[in-house]
C-alpha cells in the first residue's frame, strides 16, 4: 500500500529518482529527498521501532529531527534517527534493540512485566543476595543499550572548519530569515544556519490548507540566496553555545566552528505530545509531524484521523489534513470554548471540552476513546465514546527550543498566557526571535525577526509584539488507571512513574530527572521536560516558575565523536640530524614533542652495549639538539640567574660553566642544566629537553617581576647540539678545530670554528670523564656531526642514543630529574647541598629549604650495587623496604657493561645512606633482593 499523495507544492522528494532500500529484511522504494521514516510511512508501514524499556511498538512521533521512536542500524552505524536519515540507495536497515526482529520482538514480553518495573525499580532489587547481582547486572546491561556497535566501523575523516561572522542566525524559519535579511541589508556578515535540508521552517509545511506561505518562502529564499552578506548553511544544526559566542554547526560532512559577534536564536519550538493511554501507539503523532509528512514528503499520514487540540494550531492541522484528503472524523478540543468556525464549515464533527482518554489498537491506532473532561485531568467516564480512526494528530502545545539560550546564561520566565517559557533576560550578545519568544503566526514572526536583528545591530527597534495567547494547553495530561500514558517516549516513563518519584522524595526537578531518568534519553527531554515540569508543579502544588527546569547542557542534538575529533594531528619535532639518524638505523623514542634516537639498530641490548663500549674505550657521539638553550644578555644577566638557580653566577669567570639547579618555591627540584659565561654580559644556559619550554617561560616571568636589566633569547629551536664523549674525544675534536681544548678541562667553554662552523664547545662530564658538547646554529650543526663522523671512523666513533646515555650517566652516578626525583623531591634528599649557595640573599626555593633543613631528612638518594643479581633485574620503581616498611624506591637500575655489575640509584632511609649499608629491595616477583650502598660515581669504584 502506498500513501503517496499527488505532487504537493514545495515537496522535498524527487519523484524522478526512486530509491530502493530494505528495512528489517523487506524491500521498499522511496524517493530521493525522503527521510527513511517518511519513506517507510509512505509505504504503509506503521511499526517502525520498539520502545526502550517495554519494547512497545512505535511509529513516528514528531518527525522534527529528534524523533527517537525510529532508531536504526545498518551493521556499521547505530542509533540513526529515521527522521533525519536521508534515504539512500541500497540501504539495509533494521530497528535497534529488538530480539528476533522488529515485528516479533521477543523482548515485547517486558510489557507484561511493567507493573514489576516502576521508575527506579532497579535501585530496589537485584542486590540481595549479593552473589547474584553480577548475574542480574549482566541481564540488565544486555537489555539496555540501543544499537550493536561494530568494532570494524571505519574511522572516517570529518572536516572541521572555522568561520567568523558579525551575526549568526540559527534557524531559517520566518523569524530567522527575516532576522538574517535585516542584518545583511545593514551591511554586516551573516551566517544563517538551519538543521533541515531546506530552509523555511513552518513556511514549508504549516499551510492550513492554503499554500500561500510558499510564496513568502520563495521570496525570502531568493533574497537570502542572492544576498552577498549571507552565508546560508542548511543541514547544519547548532550543537551548543560556548563562551564568547562560539557555536559549532554540525553538518553531514563535518563541523563548522562559528565565532559570532552576535547570535540570534530563532530555533522555534518543539511541539509537545499529549499524555493519554497508548499515546505512543503507531498512528498517534504530533500535528506538525502530520503536516511535514504531507507537505515535505507528500505522504498521507492517515486515512481517517482524529485531531486532538489544545490550541489554535490544531485547526491549521485539520485544514492541511483535509486538503490532503484525510477524513477528519473528529476534532477533539481540550478547551471548552474554542472558536471552530472554519472547521465547522468543513463539516467536521467537533467535540469541545473533550479529551482523548486512550488510543485503541494493538500495533497501530484503530480508534480512540474520548470523553468530556474538566480541562484539569478529570475525564467524565459517563460521557466516553469510541471513535474509529487510523490516526491521531495531536496539537496541544509547544516548548521553546531554548537550549542555546540557557547555555548562554539567559534567564527564562514562564509566561502564563502563552503557557511557555520565554526569555526574560538575555545574555550579552544573544537575541531571540519567533516561537522561542512565544511569538506565533507568520506576520508576527517576520516582525520579531526584524526586531531581533535590529537590536543585535544596536539600532532602534519597535516594541516586541505580545505573544499570541494560549499557544499551549496548561494541562494536556489525562490519567488512566491502566497507565501506559507516556510522558517520556525515550525512557518509557508513564504518568504514575512521576507520582511514585515525588512520593518517594524525588520531588525536585533535578532529583526527579535523576530518579526517573526523564529527559536523559537520546532526545534529551525535547518532548518530555515540559510535561514533566507541569506534572511536578501539580504534585507539589506550586506554580511552574517555582519548579523551574533542568539545565540544558550541550548538545542540542547528539554529535558524532568523529565530527568532534575531526582529523587527528600528532605533531612531532625533529632535530637537524634526524634524517642521518634514520638512515643509520636509529630506533627512535618520543621525548616530549621530540623524536630522538634511543639507540642505533634493532637489538636494544646489543646496540646499547656496543655504544657504551665505544664511549668508554674510544669515542661516541649523541645528538643533544633537543636541549633547552637560552642566552641571557645584559648587565643584570648574572643577577637573574643568581636568583633563578641555586648557585653563584655573578662571580662566574668568563669561559667557565657551572651546574644550574632550578627549584620551585616549595624547594622541589624542577630542572637542571648548565650555565656557561660567554662574556661579561652574556650567559648561555641549557635546560633539559622535556622542561625547556617551562624553564624559558618561568625565567621570562621572573625577569619581569624582578624588574632586572636583562634579556632572554630562546635558542632551543635555532641551535643544535651534539655531545662527543670518550677517551678519544679530545684528539678527535682537535682535528676539526683550533680551539685550545686542553684549556677547557673542568667545565670550560669556548667559542670558535669547528669543522668550518662557528660553534660553542663546552666541556661537560655528564656521560663520560672526557666529553665535549658542541652547539651551533641549527642549519650548521649537521656539518659538524658529519665531519666528526668521518674523522672519527678510524678511531671507532659510534653514535649513541638516549638509552645508552641513560646508562652512561648512571655509571657516572648522575641522576635525571623526573626519573630519579618525583614531584616532591628536594635537594637535601638528593644530596645536592653542594649546589645550594646559601650565602646568597635569595634564590627560588631557598626559604623553603631553610625550613626543610631544620627537619630530619627521612630518605636520601644513593648509589647501590646488587650483591647477587637475579636473572631478571628488579624494575625501576621497585620498593626499598626497611623492617617491612616502605622507605623508598629504586629509581634507576642497569647492568653496567663497564663494571660488570648491576648498579643503580635508590631512595633509602637516611640511616642506611652511608656507603656499605645493606638495603632490601622488594623485587616485582615478591622476593627480596639485597644491595649495598656505594659511593658514586660508580666508575672507578672497586666492586
Amino acid at each position, binding site marked *: 500500500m502506498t500513501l503517496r499523495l499527488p505532487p504537493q507544492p514545495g515537496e522535498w522528494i524527487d519523484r524522478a529518482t526512486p530509491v530502493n532500500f530494505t528495512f528489517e529484511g523487506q524491500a521498499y522504494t522511496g524517493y530521493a529527498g525522503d527521510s527513511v521514516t517518511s519513506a517507510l510511512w509512505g509505504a504503509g508501514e506503521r511499526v517502525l521501532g520498539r520502545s526502550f524499556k517495554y519494547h512497545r511498538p512505535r511509529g513516528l512521533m514528531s518527525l522534527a529531527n529528534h524523533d527517537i521512536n525510529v532508531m536504526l542500524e545498518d551493521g556499521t552505524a*547505530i542509533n540513526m534517527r529515521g527522521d533525519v536519515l536521508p534515504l539512500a540507495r541500497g540501504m539495509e536497515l533494521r530497528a535497534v534493540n529488538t530480539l528476533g526482529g522488529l515485528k516479533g520482538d521477543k523482548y515485547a514480553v517486558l510489557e507484561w512485566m511493567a507493573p514489576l518495573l516502576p521508575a527506579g525499580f532497579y535501585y530496589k532489587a537485584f542486590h540481595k543476595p549479593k552473589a547474584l547481582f553480577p548475574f*542480574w547486572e549482566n541481564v540488565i546491561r544486555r537489555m539496555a543499550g540501543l544499537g550493536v*556497535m561494530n568494532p570494524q566501523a571505519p574511522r572516517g575523516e570529518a572536516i572541521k572548519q572555522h568561520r567568523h561572522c558579525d551575526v549568526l542566525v540559527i534557524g531559517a524559519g520566518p523569524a530567522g530569515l527575516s532576522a538574517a535579511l535585516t542584518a545583511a541589508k545593514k551591511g554586516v556578515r551573516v551566517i544563517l544556519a538551519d538543521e533541515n535540508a531546506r530552509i523555511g521552517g513552518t513556511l514549508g509545511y504549516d499551510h492550513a490548507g492554503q499554500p500561500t506561505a510558499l510564496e513568502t518562502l520563495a521570496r525570502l529564499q531568493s533574497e537570502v540566496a542572492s544576498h552577498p552578506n549571507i552565508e546560508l548553511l542548511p543541514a547544519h544544526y547548532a550543537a551548543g553555545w560556548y563562551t564568547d559566542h562560539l557555536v559549532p554547526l554540525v553538518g553531514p560532512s563535518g563541523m563548522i566552528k562559528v565565532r559570532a559577534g552576535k547570535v540570534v536564536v530563532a530555533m522555534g519550538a518543539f511541539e509537545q505530545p499529549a499524555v493519554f493511554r497508548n499515546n505512543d501507539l503507531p498512528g498517534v503523532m504530533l500535528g506538525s509531524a502530520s503536516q511535514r509528512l504531507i507537505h515535505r514528503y507528500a505522504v498521507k499520514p492517515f486515512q481517517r484521523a482524529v485531531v486532538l487540540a489544545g490550541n489554535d494550531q490544531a485547526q491549521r492541522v485539520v485544514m492541511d489534513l483535509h486538503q490532503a484528503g484525510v477524513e477528519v472524523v473528529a476534532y477533539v478540543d481540550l478547551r471548552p470554548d474554542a472558536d471552530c468556525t472554519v472547521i465547522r464549515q468543513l463539516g467536521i464533527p467537533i467535540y469541545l471540552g473533550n479529551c482523548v482518554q486512550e488510543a485503541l489498537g494493538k500495533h497501530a491506532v484503530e480508534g480512540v476513546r474520548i470523553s468530556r473532561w474538566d480541562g484539569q485531568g478529570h475525564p467524565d467516564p459517563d460521557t466516553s465514546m469510541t471513535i474509529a480512526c487510523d490516526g491521531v494528530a495531536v496539537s496541544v502545545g509547544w516548548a521553546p527550543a531554548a537550549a542555546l539560550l540557557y547555555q548562554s546564561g539567559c534567564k527564562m520566565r514562564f509566561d502564563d498566557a502563552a503557557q511557555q517559557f520565554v526569555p526574560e533576560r538575555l545574555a550579552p550578545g544573544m537575541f531571540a526571535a519567533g516561537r522561542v519568544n512565544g511569538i506565533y503566526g507568520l506576520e508576527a514572526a517576520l516582525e520579531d525577526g526584524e526586531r531581533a536583528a535590529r537590536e543585535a545591530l544596536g539600532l532602534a527597534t519597535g516594541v516586541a509584539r505580545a505573544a499570541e495567547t494560549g499557544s499551549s494547553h496548561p494541562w494536556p495530561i489525562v490519567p488512566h488507571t491502566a497507565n501506559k500514558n507516556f510522558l517520556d517516549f525515550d525512557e518509557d516513563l508513564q504518568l504514575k512513574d512521576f507520582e511514585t518519584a515525588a512520593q518517594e522524595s524525588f520531588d525536585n526537578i533535578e532529583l526527579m530527572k535523576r530518579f526517573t531518568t526523564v529527559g536523559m534519553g537520546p532526545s534529551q527531554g525535547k518532548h518530555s521536560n515540559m510535561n514533566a515540569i507541569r506534572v511536578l508543579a501539580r504534585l507539589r502544588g506550586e506554580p511552574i516558575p517555582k519548579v523551574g527546569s533542568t539545565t540544558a547542557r*550541550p548538545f542540542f542534538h*547528539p554529535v*558524532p565523536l568523529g565530527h568532534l*575529533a575531526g582529523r587527528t594531528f600528532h605533531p612531532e619535532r625533529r632535530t637537524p640530524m634526524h634524517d642521518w639518524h634514520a638512515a643509520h638505523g636509529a630506533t627512535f623514542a618520543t621525548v616530549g614533542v621530540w623524536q630522538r634516537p634511543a639507540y642505533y639498530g634493532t637489538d636494544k641490548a646489543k646496540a646499547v652495549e656496543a655504544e657504551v663500549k665505544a664511549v668508554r674505550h674510544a669515542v661516541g657521539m649523541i645528538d643533544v639538539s633537543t636541549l633547552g638553550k637560552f642566552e641571557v644578555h645584559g648587565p643584570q644577566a648574572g643577577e637573574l640567574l643568581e636568583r633563578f638557580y641555586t648557585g653563584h653566577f655573578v662571580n662566574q669567570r668568563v669561559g667557565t660553566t657551572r651546574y644550574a639547579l632550578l627549584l620551585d618555591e616549595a624547594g622541589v627540584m624542577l630542572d637542571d642544566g648548565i650555565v656557561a659565561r660567554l662574556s661579561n654580559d652574556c650567559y648561555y644556559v641549557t635546560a633539559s629537553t622535556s622542561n625547556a619550554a617551562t624553564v624559558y617561560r618561568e625565567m621570562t616571568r621572573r625577569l619581569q617581576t624582578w624588574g632586572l636589566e636583562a634579556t632572554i633569547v630562546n635558542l632551543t629551536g635555532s641551535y643544535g647540539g651534539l655531545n662527543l664523549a670518550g677517551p678519544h674525544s679530545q684528539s678527535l675534536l682537535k682535528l676539526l678545530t683550533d680551539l685550545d681544548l686542553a684549556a677547557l678541562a673542568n667545565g670550560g667553554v669556548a667559542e670558535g670554528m669547528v669543522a668550518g662552523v662557528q660553534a660553542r664547545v663546552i666541556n661537560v662530564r655528564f656521560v663520560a670523564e672526557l666529553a665535549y658538547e658542541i652547539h651551533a646554529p641549527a642549519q650548521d650543526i649537521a656539518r659538524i656531526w658529519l665531519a666528526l663522523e668521518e674523522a672519527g671512523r678510524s678511531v671507532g666513533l659510534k653514535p649513541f642514543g638516549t638509552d645508552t646515555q641513560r646508562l652512561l650517566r648512571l655509571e657516572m652516578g648522575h641522576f635525571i630529574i623526573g626519573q630519579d626525583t618525583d614531584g616532591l623531591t628536594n635537594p637535601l634528599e638528593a644530596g645536592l647541598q653542594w649546589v645550594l649557595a646559601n650565602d646568597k640573599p635569595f634564590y627560588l626555593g631557598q626559604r623553603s629549604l631553610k625550613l626543610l633543613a631544620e627537619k630530619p631528612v627521612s630518605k636520601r638518594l644513593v648509589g647501590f650495587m646488587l650483591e647477587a643479581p637475579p636473572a631478571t633485574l628488579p*624494575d625501576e620503581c621497585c620498593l626499598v623496604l626497611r623492617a617491612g616498611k616502605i622507605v623508598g624506591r629504586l629509581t634507576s637500575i642497569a647492568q653496567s657493561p663497564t663494571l660488570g655489575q648491576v648498579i643503580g640509584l635508590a631512595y633509602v632511609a637516611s640511616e642506611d645512606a652511608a656507603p656499605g649499608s645493606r638495603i632490601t629491595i622488594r623485587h*616485582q616477583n615478591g622476593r627480596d633482593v639485597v644491595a649495598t650502598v656505594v659511593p658514586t660515581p660508580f666508575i672507578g669504584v672497586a666492586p
Partner: protein
Amino acid sequence: MPYQLLKFALSKKHPEPAFFRQPAELKPSYDAVIIGGGGHGLAAAYYLAKEHGLTNVAVLERGYLGGGNTGRNTTIIRSNYLTPEGVAFYDASVKLWENLSQELDLNLFYSTRGHFTLAHTESAMRTMRWRAEVNKQMGVESEVVGPDVIQAAVPELDMSCSGHAPILGALYHKPGSVARHDAVAWGFGRAASEMGVEIFQNTEVTGLDIRNGRIAGVHTSRGTIKTGKVLSAVAGYTPRITKMAGFDTPIVIHPLQACVTEPMKPWLNTILVSGSLHVYVSQSSRGELVMGASLDPYEVHATRSTLDFVEGLSSHILDMFPFLAGIKVVRQWAGMADMTPDFAPVMGKTPVEGLYLDAGWGTWGFKATPISGKTMAHTLATDKPHELIHGFRLDRFRDFELTGEKGAASVGH
C-alpha cells in the same frame, strides 16, 4: 525474578514511603551540622548516627541532594594509589563499597569491572610499577600487565592508539568498579534520615558564627542554628566556607568536565584510563560510554562546558577506538573540583575549633564517599582525627609534609 520486583506488583503500599524526612523548619540547635548534602556529607551523617549515636544532626544542602560532584563524576571506584596513606584509605573505602548496597538496602549498581591504567611511555610504565609495588605491599590487588593481557580484556582496543602512542602495558587493578552515583547519596540520605538525621534542601549557608576561635552556630538562608560541631563537605565550594571561617587553605577550584554518549549494547567491560591521552572511559549499565579527561587548566567557579574539552577527548577516544567515530555524544557537563597541590584531600580539624573539613576532593572524591563519611564521623564525634586521615590533615602544608598523590591521581579516575 527477584522477589523485590514482585513486591511492586503485589503490594498495595507501593509506591514506597519517602526516602528522606524533610522537616519544614530548622530546629534552633543541633549537636552537629553538616554543610553539604552530597555523598560525603550524607555518609558522614549516616556514620555519625550509626556508629556514634549522634542523631540530632542537620544536613544542609544549598541545592538538591547529590547535586554537586556526587552527581557529576564518572563513578569510578579504585584504591590503586601511590602513597601508603592513600592506598590504605582508599582500600578501606573499597571494602565499605563492596557491601554498601546491602547495608543501605539500595542497589547502587556497584559493579566490579577491573581497571586498567594504560602506559604509553617508559616513564609511565615506571609509575605503574611504583603504584603496583606500593599497592601489593599494602595488600591491594594491582599488577603491571603487558599488552597481551590488555588486548585480551579489551579486544576492540587499538593497541597502537592509531600508531601514535603504542600501549606498552598497564597497571591492572582488579577491584576497580563503577557505581550509580546518585543512588549513593540517596542511600546514605535515607539511612541517615531513618535514624533521625534531618535533611534540608534548598538551604544555603550564609555565614558561620565563630566565637573565640570556636564554632558556635551556622547562619543559613532559613535562619540561624546553634551548634558546637560543623562539618564542611562541600567539594567545589570549600573556599567559600573557609573564607567565612576566616582562614585560607591550598584549595583552588578547577572545573572537571565529562560527557556521555548515546546508549549501545554492552561491549566495554572494564574501566580504561590513559594518562598520556587524557582519557578515562567506562560503559554504564544503561549502555552509555561515560568519559572524562583532565581538569580544566585554570580556576573557575562555574560548571560551564567547553567545546575544546569534548573535541580533545573525542580525538583521544578515537585514537583508542577508531570505530566509535559514528557514536554520538549526547551530553556534556562539568563539576567544580577542589584541587590541592599534592593531589590528596584535606580532612580533619581546622584552625577553628569545632569546624572540620572534608575537602580537597579534586577528582578523587566519589570513590572515597563511604570512608570519608566514616572517618569524618569519627573525627567529629571524638574531636580526634581518624588514623586513616592523618596524611590528609590541613597542617601538612605548613609542615611541608605533603602526601604526593599526583602520580596516581591526575587523570587517574
